[in-house]
């Protein structure tokens, strides 16, 4: 119960930060920061709550969409990585692993980075591709994906390292 409440708080906090601050920032006309994806990365996923997780991710994307006038693009990208998450962890972890990756930054280190980078790249690419909605713009989509993914990753690792230091003490 306490954990549920904690994640509900993260949910709202990440949306607020995304909408209030990060949506107003754009670097070099290319770089967007989608910190809210952190929620999908750290949500404690187990075998029983996969469907619930899909719905939560859908809702997360939908709320971001409402505030960004972007229709279903965030919703689509969020639901996709939420579904792919166990498959990606399996890919890097060997076993059919649903272990919460909340504190895995310190536990796994490089493994978490690889997992996060894969998820973010898929999310950003899907997002920009759905937004462009045409193959003609593929070079721009790829460039935006690359620049934005790097920015999002920097933010995620920065937040993660702050959070984990606090926990370790």
């Amino acid at each position, binding site marked *: 119960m306490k954990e549920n409440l904690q994640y509900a708080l993260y949910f709202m906090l990440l949306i607020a930060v995304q909408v209030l601050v990060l949506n107003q920032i754009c670097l070099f006309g290319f770089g967007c920061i989608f910190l809210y994806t952190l929620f999908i990365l750290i949500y404690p996923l187990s075998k029983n709550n996969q469907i619930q997780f*899909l719905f939560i991710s859908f809702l997360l994307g939908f709320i971001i969409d409402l505030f960004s006038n972007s229709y279903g693009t965030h919703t689509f990208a969020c639901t996709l990585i939420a579904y792919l998450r166990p498959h990606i962890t399996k890919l890097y972890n060997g076993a059919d692993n649903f272990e919460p990756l909340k504190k895995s930054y310190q536990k796994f280190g490089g493994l978490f980075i690889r997992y996060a980078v894969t998820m973010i790249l898929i999310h950003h690419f899907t997002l920009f591709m759905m937004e462009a909605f045409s193959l003609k713009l593929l070079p721009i989509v790829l460039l935006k994906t690359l620049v934005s993914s790097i920015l999002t990753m920097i933010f995620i690792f920065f937040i993660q390292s702050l959070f984990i230091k606090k926990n370790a003490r």
Partner: protein
Amino acid sequence: MFKFFQKYSTFLIFLLLESVAFALIANQSVFQKSLFAKSVIEVTASFYNTTNNITQYFWLKNDNKKLSAENAELQRKVKVLEKFIAQKNYENTLDGDSVLIIIPVKIVYKTVDKINNYMIINKGRKDGIRKDMSVVSANSVVGVVQTVSDNYAVVISVLSQKLKISGKLQKADYLCSIFWNGQSPRKCNIENIPDHVAAAVGDTIVTSGYSSIFPENVVVGTIKKITLNPSTAWNNIEIEYATDFMTVSFVNVVANARHNELNSLQQSLE
């Protein structure tokens, strides 16, 4: 059968959710017309309006500079026109089509880094804003009103794949269509100006006024670079926008008073 659903329930729900999201993306125009969209705009816009009321103080200096430059330009024009009117019988110079509605608005939120950019302005239906009205800054293009709620409106920026402007080369009166390339918020392209039309770097591109959205002779930008495509004998022309989309904040919604009449006439033709 039931076992099948149980086994693949996650995947099926995933498919269901993705198709809902996809339907939202594919049916944007239906969504825009919905009542839901209007209430969403009302909520998000009032939210951005509050944040804008705080952050606008940081840009006051810049905004003031721009407004006073605009003011100076307008006063210069008034002087010229006064002279002009004094010399001529003004009734002959009044163009029958130039009955314009001008509503000054403030942009409370905008994007420039998306593939389809948009803005939210602080006036809506109650102030007379309607769908498809044009948004103009000083005398350069900004966008087109897309969805209107009671107190706010969403404007599609010209920095969008969804908007094609009908323009013309000012000095030659040659028609062309202008589209944004999705890259820099400062540049856009024209393709259909043939080689024999003598376009030069520095020439001004204005709106043609043929679509009912933008009035005639609103500046789009100036030609920055011309490269000949040898296989087609058409020029690829790069324009720099006259509007600085990074800093634009006070704009005008401009509409032809006969906008509705023109629109219904066009629709009856189609």
